């Protein structure tokens, strides 16, 4: 009985101290959780009295908790949906968007695959099963195994809207239903590394020697570029997306100080160190 009492008191005290002034709650995108953690640790080293908690769960989870007022900053690898903004407004939350970095999305195949460059049109046709065999894009005679992220992934949504639908809002292109929906970027990396027929996509941070990165061109007339830091910054590599922070209204006090740090030279260096692309 006494133990239970102590337990509850601890929880209540913990909650009160969390609600106190010297802490920031950051929640959201799994893609960004390592980045957020790195920022938080570096910031806390400079400001010993501040406590920053970073948790993942997905972009939608972060946005949902911003709407319900349980976090100060939502990390998101996609922009907020119309419904979400409307929902926030009804709860008196006024979401403010900050682009804190960029993420190039690499298209990868097995190192033994002879295909090394594709256009956006070819990629769209591959992921919608209009192209079913590697020989149609200059490879060997083998059927293509499609790997995608789950629908809860900001990367999935970005790839669909900007590659499959080529940014056209009226398009209704979808990933073919034969596409394998993998639970994580690492799962795609593992499967591509061991399957010579597979093609997949994920953030640049996951590129390794076990997979081959495909050079991408906007169309056959343009040049092909690989997802390197320079190509993403210069915009030559076509498939890259912004990473966002969302706050309730204009940030103030501690949150403002933290966001200023993120935009500062040290913060942007951390973006680079965690294999994302700085905005400056």
């Amino acid at each position, binding site marked *: 009985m006494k133990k239970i009492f102590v337990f509850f008191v601890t929880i209540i005290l913990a909650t009160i101290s969390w609600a106190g002034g010297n802490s920031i709650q950051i929640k959201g995108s799994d893609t960004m959780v390592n980045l957020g953690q790195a920022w938080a640790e570096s910031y806390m080293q400079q400001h010993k009295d501040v406590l920053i908690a970073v948790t993942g*769960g*997905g*972009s*939608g*989870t972060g946005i*949902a908790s911003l*709407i319900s007022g349980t976090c100060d900053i939502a990390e998101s690898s996609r922009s907020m*949906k119309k*419904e*979400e903004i409307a*929902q926030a407004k009804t709860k008196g939350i006024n979401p403010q968007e900050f682009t804190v970095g960029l993420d190039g999305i690499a298209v990868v195949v097995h190192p033994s695959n002879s295909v090394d460059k594709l256009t956006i049109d070819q990629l769209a046709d591959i992921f919608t099963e209009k192209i079913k065999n590697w020989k149609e894009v200059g490879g060997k005679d*083998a*059927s293509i*195994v499609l790997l995608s992220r*789950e*629908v*809860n*992934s900001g990367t999935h*949504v970005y790839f669909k809207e900007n590659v499959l639908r080529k940014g056209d809002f009226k398009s*209704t292109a*979808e990933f073919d*239903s*034969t*596409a*394998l*929906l*993998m*639970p994580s970027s690492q*799962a795609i990396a*593992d*499967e591509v590394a*061991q*399957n010579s*027929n*597979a093609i997949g996509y994920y953030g640049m941070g996951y590129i390794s020697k076990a997979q081959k990165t495909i050079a991408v061109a906007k169309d056959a007339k343009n040049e092909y570029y690989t997802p390197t830091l320079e190509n993403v910054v210069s915009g030559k590599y076509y498939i890259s997306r912004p990473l966002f922070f969302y706050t309730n209204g204009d940030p103030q006090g501690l949150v403002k100080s933290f966001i200023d740090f993120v935009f500062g030279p040290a913060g942007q260096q951390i973006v680079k160190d965690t294999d994302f692309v700085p905005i400056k």
Partner: protein
Amino acid sequence: MQKNFNGKLVKEWVIERCIYLSGIASIIFVGLIFIFLAKEGFSLFKTVSVSDFLLGQKWYPISTPAQFGILPLIVGSLYVTLGATIIAVPIGIASAVYIAEVAPVKTREILKSGIEVLAAIPSVVLGFIGMMTLVPWVKNTFHLPTGLTAFSGALMLAFMAMPTIVSIAEDALNAVPKRYKEAALALGATRWQAIWRVIFPAASSGILAAVMLGIGRVIGETMAVMMITGNAARIPNSLFEPVRTLTATVAAEMGETVRGSDHYFALFAIGIVLFIITFFINLIADLAVHRKLK
């Protein structure tokens, strides 16, 4: 004296109530869970018809217009569950018979603790091992485009169902009165005849319960299937194609849905479907056990 007596009565009453509350707590929780599931899940059917939901073949939950057809998911769950049952039931029952009737005492103790350890391995660990070892093996052995198939999932889940099946079936076999076996042997039956013709039929309802609980374990399993079945929402033609199960869909998509959206309700509606399926499996298991008691 009188006071002391009253004190005892009060104490008795309080303890009785407490035990009563603990006793009905699980039923209250099940009830609350179902009410919550129903409240959220049935909201979907304001916009999507029940038949479109259950029989639709397209699962594109985040498109506009969204399509919420869970037939591929139901079929996916059935494929994996059936596959795992076909593998786990014969091996599990045979293993239970060996442990209960044949094995020497020492071997029995080793086997029993081995099975307990198998039951204690977290499913995410089994999923990870499956992804690293089983998936490439399935791909190469059967010359498939990918090893992420219903078959891989079934094989892995068979491992998870096995401890449940073995331990419950073994209890059922042990519950058969010793004199049945002794009588059979005295009448000149061989050991195998005694097991197959006498002990096995006597324990059959307990074994059926073991099988049903094993199936219940398989259909509700999430993490391992999510990691090794490929999760493609399409009705498979064979066990050697990728499938997407009901549980994996809820687990994979719940984190990212907009609260109160159709997608959110659809995931709860999937929860209702799963609840109904497991409810019936448990009901059958329960009926089987009760038949034994009569």
